[in-house]
């Protein structure tokens, strides 16, 4: 979903420019150091600019704009974690500064910390609801977090205001299809296709087929999308999923790795590759994938459950117990979590607790069977 990520990249930049700095002071004065920092920054010497900003801020720690520029330079150098720290310091001084908040959101986004990025963007969008780019980036965050309903609520009014905006059609279509509203989602796909064949439209059609468990058709759609634009964000993650579902494990792994090479924070590719590697007994790499998936979606139940299974596998029953107890607390109907929690308890020699979990599973399954329509029982 770099559609909007790319468009917004220009926003993350200098807050303070050379014209804002006085020229009368000498080169060793704080102003001279700052001017030098700005010159280096604008000339592309990012490492030099960072050093000069830091030198200046040692002397004038309260200069909000210089601190923000330091954050921008750090972000440009790919050091998002330090950029986040600097932006936060700047916001402590001026919490309502929207450009800095936007830059902070982008730094979070680039660092793969989608949840706090969404939090910052919500603040920006609340202040400036009419600005398209923060809205699109927030919608993209929601999609990455799997919060499809929130994306729909955000994009629906915007789509009605600007019905010809293909980026909005694409993102809203994605959210609708993932939310199970395939018919409405496919209407938007048709609209995208009206302007000619597009990789985005085929990706969405593929996702729609995938959610209907029509794996062969999904594979065909993803194949068409790949033929048009093999670089389309998320495409290889979904293509790999369809390959795995149709039995091409080797191809699936290659597709997931391709996706992650261009976007290490793609949730689908991380999660699905984690599952493949787990099946292959490559537990260490599998864990890294699930952990990365969890960084993107910090509350994701599926990734947390898989990590708990890996803990069980590795003999870390206590760690697994903590995670599984939390999962069943959140959703007492989660049969799989109860089953694995029983195993964790048994391995911890907590037999009565394990027995309780098993009894619960039998109760839940019996209730499910009783609720199933006649003839549906296995």
């Amino acid at each position, binding site marked *: 979903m770099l559609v909007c990520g790319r468009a917004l990249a220009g926003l993350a930049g200098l807050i303070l420019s050379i014209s804002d700095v006085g020229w009368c002071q000498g080169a060793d004065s704080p102003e001279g150091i700052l001017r030098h920092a700005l010159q280096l920054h604008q000339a592309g010497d990012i490492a030099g600019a960072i050093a000069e900003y830091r030198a200046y801020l040692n002397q004038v720690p309260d200069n909000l704009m210089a601190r923000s520029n330091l954050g921008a330079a750090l972000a440009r150098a790919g050091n998002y974690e330090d950029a986040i720290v600097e932006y936060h310091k700047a916001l402590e001084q001026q919490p309502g500064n929207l450009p800095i908040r936007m830059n902070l959101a982008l730094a979070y986004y680039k660092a793969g910390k989608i949840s706090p990025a969404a939090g910052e963007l919500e603040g920006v969008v609340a202040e400036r609801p009419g600005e398209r780019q923060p809205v699109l980036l927030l919608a993209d965050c929601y999609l990455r977090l799997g919060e499809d309903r929130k994306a729909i609520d955000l994009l629906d009014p915007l789509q009605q205001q600007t019905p010809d905006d293909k980026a909005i059609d694409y993102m809203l279509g994605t959210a609708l299809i993932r939310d199970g509203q395939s018919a409405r989602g496919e209407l938007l796909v048709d609209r995208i296709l009206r302007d000619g064949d597009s990789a985005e439209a085929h990706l969405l059609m593929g996702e729609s087929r995938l959610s209907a468990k029509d794996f062969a058709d999904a594979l065909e759609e993803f194949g068409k999308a790949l033929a048009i634009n093999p670089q389309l964000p998320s495409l290889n993650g979904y293509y790999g999923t369809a390959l795995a579902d*149709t*039995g091409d*494990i*080797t191809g699936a792994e290659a597709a997931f790795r391709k996706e992650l090479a261009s976007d290490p924070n793609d949730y689908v590719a991380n999660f699905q590759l984690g599952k493949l590697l787990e*099946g*292959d*007994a490559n537990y260490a790499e599998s864990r890294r994938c699930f952990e990365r998936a969890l960084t993107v979606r910090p509350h994701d139940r599926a990734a947390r459950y898989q990590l708990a299974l890996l803990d*069980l*596998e*590795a*003999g*870390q*029953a206590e760690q697994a117990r903590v995670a599984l107890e939390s999962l069943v607390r959140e959703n007492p109907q989660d*049969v*799989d979590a109860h*089953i*694995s929690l*029983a*195993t964790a308890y*048994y*391995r911890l*020699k907590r*037999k009565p607790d*394990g*027995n309780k979990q*098993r009894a619960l*599973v*039998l109760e839940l*399954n*019996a209730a*499910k*069977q009783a609720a199933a329509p006649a003839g549906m*029982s*296995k």
Partner: protein
Amino acid sequence: MRPALLALFLVPVVAAGSGDSACAACHAQETAHFRPTPMAQALLLVENCEILKAHPDMQFQEGPYHTQIKREGDRSIITVTSGVESFSVPILYALGQGKAGQTYVFQHDGAIYESRASFYNETGGLDLTIGDQGTTPHTIVEAAGRRTGPAEAANCFGCHSHGAVAGGILHLESVVPGVGCQSCHVQAEKHAAAVRAGNVATAKMAHLADLAAEETLELCGQCHRTWAQIAQTGMHGPNTVRFQPYRLTNSKCYDVEDQRIRCTTCHDPHGQINTNLASYDAKCTACHSTALHTEVCSVAKDNCVTCHMPKIDLPGAHHKFTDHQIRIVKAGEPYPN
């Protein structure tokens, strides 16, 4: 140590191996004892399959489709005809020794198929394969068999043979028929190599006889299905009778830590099933006895399993399976779980 040990068991990977001959060099008695068992013969080559040899022409009619399994020399061919078209394919392997039944697999279009018709010992002929009940074939190939996905095919061969699955992928070229030593003793190859090298320290293997009930059931359940696997599917009713670890776990007397109630309490993993029901009494009285001041049966003193582990007639399976959910069976009560 146990969790780490369990992790070794649960790795669903069977290393490429050359069968059990390496083990037999030192463990001749165990391997000789094991070879004639149904587990060791869970997959048979067509040329050696006694059932296919003894029944050279089997037929089965299902709606418009007529299935014939005909012997031709060392091969057996499945042919399905509908009056309009016909489909023929040689059987690749026979699954199961045939005490209850035997299903066949064949290859078509690069995929593994499970035959839609299986042999049943009770009837001495073909009938619908048990998992296919309630389904209708739409093509002549579907009438011959059900296409399995790569993961399912790997699972089938992972249990019915050894040496065939690596990294979750089936390698037909390295199939060794039947369950082998390393199917359970997953460190067998490493052990054999270390013994050959005279390296006693690394030759040590997990001692499976030390496992508690739950650990044993998890090990056997890799193929016979664990409680967790069945519970996850939500399956219930008589179909579950085929999954002994699941049934045993549901028994009131099952205790995860107690070695007196594990699979190997009654079944010798290297030997044949003991058909003398009275021989199991000692297993029950190891817990239920007046000497131990525990609950004892007020109805009978012997042949415990005939009442407490009833035979269940599974519709379509032409076989009565022993229910491993040990219980006091009351007349008219529904099948539990």
